[in-house]
């Protein structure tokens, strides 16, 4: 196939790459930002000690946030709610969707533990009003409540709600909300950088043939097809 695209061979490419200087401090900051955003409090403290990089957030704040996230991941939703409210009462007061998802998770945990009567009471007292207050939650609400209908929940159409991944989803949502309330980005910068790389390569693909990175974990340059 005759191509009008410019071709850049590997040697030329590597030469150009070598001209770019990346500072160690910047890379440390990227790593620190990742550890802080993901909430690895101990790693943050250790990394700080070993490299002298300052985290852009108090370690104590990271630990508070992690306590909430872990509570959700263990299914202790009520505990998580209390902790979030101690941290910042505005978060759940101004985030109806997040609050709904937390209440939804509570119901799921009650069902998982086969506390059906309590679950019914909870659905009526706490979950139904959410649907009344906000019509956009009704569909999700119905899906969740339908768990109560099936005898064998592990085989019903909405069984993915019982998955541990559902807990993770809720935990991530809370984590992001807390970070936002602290004026911190909810995604690590590393994440954005990788997305930028993918986008830049896609753009360049239309104009040139060059050694691209296919596997981000290895970051090896693939030889350009000629």
């Amino acid at each position, binding site marked *: 196939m005759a191509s009008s695209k410019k071709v850049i061979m590997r040697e030329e490419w590597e030469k150009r790459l070598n001209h770019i200087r990346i500072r160690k401090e910047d890379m440390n900051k990227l790593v620190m930002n990742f550890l802080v955003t993901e909430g690895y409090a101990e790693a943050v403290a250790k990394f700080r000690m070993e490299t002298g990089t300052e985290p852009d957030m108090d370690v104590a704040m990271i630990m508070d946030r992690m306590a909430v996230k872990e509570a959700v991941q263990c*299914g*202790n939703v*009520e505990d998580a709610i209390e902790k979030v*409210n101690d941290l910042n*009462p505005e978060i759940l007061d101004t985030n*109806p969707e997040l*609050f709904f998802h937390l209440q939804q998770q509570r119901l799921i945990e009650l069902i998982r533990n086969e506390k059906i009567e*309590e679950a019914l009471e909870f659905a009526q007292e706490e979950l139904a*009003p959410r649907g009344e207050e906000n019509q956009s939650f009704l569909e999700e609400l119905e899906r969740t409540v339908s768990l109560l209908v099936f005898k064998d929940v592990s085989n019903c159409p909405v069984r993915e709600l019982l998955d541990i991944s559902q807990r993770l989803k809720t935990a991530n949502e809370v984590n992001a909300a807390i970070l936002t309330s602290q*004026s911190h980005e909810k995604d690590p910068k590393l994440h954005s950088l990788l997305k930028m790389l993918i986008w830049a390569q896609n753009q360049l693909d239309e104009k040139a043939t060059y050694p691209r990175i296919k596997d981000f974990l290895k970051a090896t340059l693939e030889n350009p097809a000629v």
Partner: protein
Amino acid sequence: MPSATVNKPRPSELLSRLTSAEPEVKVRALREVKNQIIGNRTKKLSFLKLGAVPAVAGILADSIDDVTDNNNCNNDSNNAINILVQSAAALGSFACGFDAGVQAVLDAGAFPNLLRLLANPNEKVVDAVARALRMIYQSKLAPKYDFLQQKNMEFLISLLNSEKENVSGLGASIITRSCETNLEQKALFDAGILRKLNSLLEGGSLSQRDASLESLATIFRNNPEVISKFAGPEIGRPLSSIIDLAKDRYPRTRLLACMCLIVIRNASPHFLQDIGIKTKLIHILLELLDDPGQVGDEAPFAFSSLIAQKEDLQKLALEANAIDKLHHHIKKGSLHPRRYEGILLALADMCSKLESCRSKFLSLQVLNLLADALTDYNAGVRAAACICLKSVTRSIKNLSAGYFMNETIVIPLVQLFLDPSTSVQVAALGATSNIVVDFTTRKSIFVQCGGMKQLVQLAKSMESSVRSNALWALKNFVFQADNRLKEGVFSELTASLLSSLIRDPEPSVQEQALALVRNLVDGCINLIEFVFAEDGLILGAIGRQLQCASTAEIGIQGMYALCNVASGNEFHKEAVMQLLFTQMGDKNQSFVIKFLQSNDSRLCTATVWTIVNLTCPSSPGAPGRLEKLRNAGIVSQIKNMVNDPCVDVKLRVRTVLGQSMAFGDN
């Protein structure tokens, strides 16, 4: 082990624990109340009804002096701190986005205590209290802050200077909520507040930047003086920092920055007028429509404030495909009512002046969409749909083609005449006023679906805006309509109703009633009999109203009504003459002279036209009438106007003089 406690204490049980003498029990109960109400509007309401707010406010008041020293770490002082923190947090949550809660907190007298606690030595207490006050200030019910008092201004400055985000945020919220007048804006400027806000804009956190943008917009609103002082050379280039924030990564910041820039643009002709910034603002706001949350709900309102009444911006927005984009969002359906309302109003603004915009909108087959919106369950959406309809029905091309006079639109529109909301009624009447100016013969559709009778009913409404808009619609309805239609309207209205509307206490109603008469009697000599019905009720009302016309518009419509009557036969002309010469009290001067001497050329024109009709040579009684007019000094007044700067006046004056010369006048 997952917790599954649903056997919580009942609310009433909780409230009784609040009264416990043991501080630990109290703290736990307060915390439990707080945790039950956060995020839960239903619970807030039920606790409210049980009197929770006064109970918590009472605890706050009792404990206010308990924490005086930040250094005590014993159990007692911990409990005291916790009591303050939890009660403040609970009160803040009651007030968060919940007006009934705000009112309850204010009624319970908690506000002054919260203010006092801002000076508390304990950081957590101050944080909780500042947050609670911020929630109160987000509501319209917040107490008005008096900026003009020196110590209040100093207090505000101390809040803004605080390092704590919640405290400086409170300062900004107070400004955004309470600053209203130019005087207050100037006072804030003089106290150096703008400089402080600007530094928060450039060096603060996300929430501080957002709060600062809102406060700045409030201080700039309608105040070109403050704007030019702010944008002047002393404070660096502050406008550019706001412009930069319009491109910020966070959608809310972009929206608030755009809103601030729009406030500046609208208040001051010197700033932000180049095409680059106009285009940028349009694009940013259109893109913000895509945001799924509150930012996307508010974006169309900001867009409206940018383009409203401004043809140049509407043109630019049209080129940027604004109409397609707005339409695309509505088509998606299941919109939040606020967003739906905003988009409809934005489309209304886009189509308010330019035919190109209306054509574009109508080309998208929107009538069914608008018909749906007219029947929406939300009053704001219904009103916005009517306002949008009013804009597009200004398209004469489509109006003449009878595009709008069809049942899809007319039936839901007429139903809105009975809407429980007055603003919806008025908006529906506005749209109707345009639609009934139908140049085809399809006006009968409107009668068939009961629209005409409804309009007459609304002309009797207690709301003056409904009366005047209903009359406006009737006025347009009978404009150049056929005799049968006009007779139908008149018999439904009756002479006594119409004459009482001419004498209505509201000037706007008087004006529309007179204009309706004008249109009714126009065109056919038989219709002139309307004004003589029931012993000349209407004619008499016109005469009396013209004697004491409070606005030029009333005089204009009244004179044109008389002018049309005077275009009839001898009897009609003599009746008008008699009206013109009725004295009021001791005044010898007829209102005719007053009108002829008016600065408003439209009024002069209308009056001279009437004289033209009274003195037209083909009628036998003309010389006699001319004599009377001459004796009253009216002819010489008219002679003085022979070189009037207004062309309409000049031409009509010359017609009168020409006619008078036909009778041998010098």
